[in-house]
């Protein structure tokens, strides 16, 4: 499963990658809280957060430009509301909200790029998120690219038959609905096959839980440093 560049990044080796997921979660939430509650009109404070995040990216040995580009996913949303606020005569506020949401996205990219999803979910489990939900999330992620590829193949097949999903007519809607229903049926069949395979491998209705690694000195230091830096910047 190498469809996402984040997958590759999250399997690198660095001091930040080696830290306990719980420590990274705590650090990320502290940073998100500080960024989210910062008032508009404090560019130096926002620059401080950016420097902190940049340090994280460098420690984690990630490509700086790649991380910046990935965090751009929030720009369409931020852009729409930024333009609206600017039209309403509040350009300063528009810029602040845009920068804050970009920095928040950057924090999330850094978290996801240093922590593989299974580790992240294990961290969430020790914060009390229901196991059932986490197992569903993990299975979803496991089959996400399988099903998406199936949808892509169906799209190709339809296009090569001269149809495709872009017909502007009732036919187009029918074909689309048929495709979704077929995908549903195939997903159902796949779920059953998965379940049989699980039974064959000894599944008895319980998922064994990997024991969480020890929360070491480095992990404690990371969560302390990040929280202290975020709090200092926020309150300065």
């Amino acid at each position, binding site marked *: 499963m190498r469809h996402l560049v984040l997958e590759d990044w999250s399997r690198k080796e660095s001091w930040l990658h080696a830290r306990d997921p719980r420590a990274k979660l705590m650090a990320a939430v502290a940073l998100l809280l500080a960024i989210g*509650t910062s008032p508009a009109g404090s560019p130096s404070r926002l620059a401080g957060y950016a420097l902190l995040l940049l340090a994280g990216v460098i420690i984690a040995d990630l490509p700086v430009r790649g991380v910046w580009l990935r965090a751009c996913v929030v720009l369409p949303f931020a852009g729409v509301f930024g333009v609206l606020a600017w039209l309403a005569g509040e350009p300063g506020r528009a810029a602040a909200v845009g920068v804050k949401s970009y920095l928040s996205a950057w924090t999330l990219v850094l978290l996801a790029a240093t922590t593989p999803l299974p580790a*992240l979910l294990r961290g969430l489990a020790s914060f009390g998120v*229901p196991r059932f939900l986490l197992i569903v*999330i993990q299975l979803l992620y496991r089959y996400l690219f399988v*099903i*998406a590829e199936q949808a892509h193949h169906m799209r190709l097949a339809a296009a090569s038959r001269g149809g495709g999903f872009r*017909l502007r007519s009732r036919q187009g809607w029918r074909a689309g609905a048929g495709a979704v229903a077929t995908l549903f049926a195939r997903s159902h069949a796949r779920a059953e096959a998965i379940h049989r395979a699980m039974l064959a491998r000894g599944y008895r209705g319980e998922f064994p839980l990997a024991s969480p690694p020890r929360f070491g000195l480095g992990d404690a230091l990371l969560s302390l440093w990040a929280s202290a830096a975020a709090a200092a910047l926020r309150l300065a």
Partner: protein
Amino acid sequence: MHIPDGFLTVPVWAGLAAVSVPLVGVAARRAQGEAEENRIPLLGVMGAFVFGAQMVNFPLAPGTSGHLFGGALLACTLGPASAVVVMTAVLAIQALVFQDGGVLALGANVFNMALVGVVAGYLPYWLWGQGAGRDLAVATGGFLSVMASATLALTELRLSGVVIPPAALWLALGVFALNAVAEGLITLLVVRSLDRLHPGWIRRADAPRSAAVKTVLGASVALAVIGLAVASAAPDGLDRLAEELGISDRSRILWETPLSDYQARFLPPGWLQQAAAGLAGISLAGACVAAVAKLLSRRRSA
């Protein structure tokens, strides 16, 4: 509409997270307890199916296309509790892996799309899903699901002080309505196709038998959606109305409560005060809803 981090104020996201977390917990326990034993792989794969289904485009207007959002479809096929779990898992993956929607804002996004989106999508089907009215109920569910999620997101943004001029609001509501109509149609068409493929996949709706309960529930959903739409489009309308009627001074005295203007008076000012007021208000509303639900269920079982 996935709200990223940085837009919502603390009282809004914290309040909605405080509501979403226990409700998702209840849904997870119910979904886990349901009979079919292949439930866990089914829910996971259905979450992946939502991603795949969103790659299928439907022509909306020249130059634009829409796609299925899925809340109502999942509710009609997997049941509401499982649908809530699947949609929550979808939103979690979108936030954690694709940075689509924030992590602090995840509670709000789950509330809008996984909880309200699924419940609003399921209610019409639950109430009128048997017999002749089924098709209309399915389509209405799809419409309500998207409309309710979108207006809620808009309302939360406005509550957080995001500036949206009235003209843009109406435009946004129009776009949402178009998407909601499309969702209703797509959901209906897919349900019909599934009927031909395997009728057993569409759950039988076990509606409450009392016509009075049906009417009250239906009316409250309609009122909530209309009210939300109006409130998000013209939040100052009520204030203006009060001013024009000359009751604003009197009403201020009437409404001088510990939580007035979304601030708890007895706490130090600032966001802490707002957060406390938001949490208290939402817990109050949640307690009312829980009490009404308990009353209704007791009456039904009696």
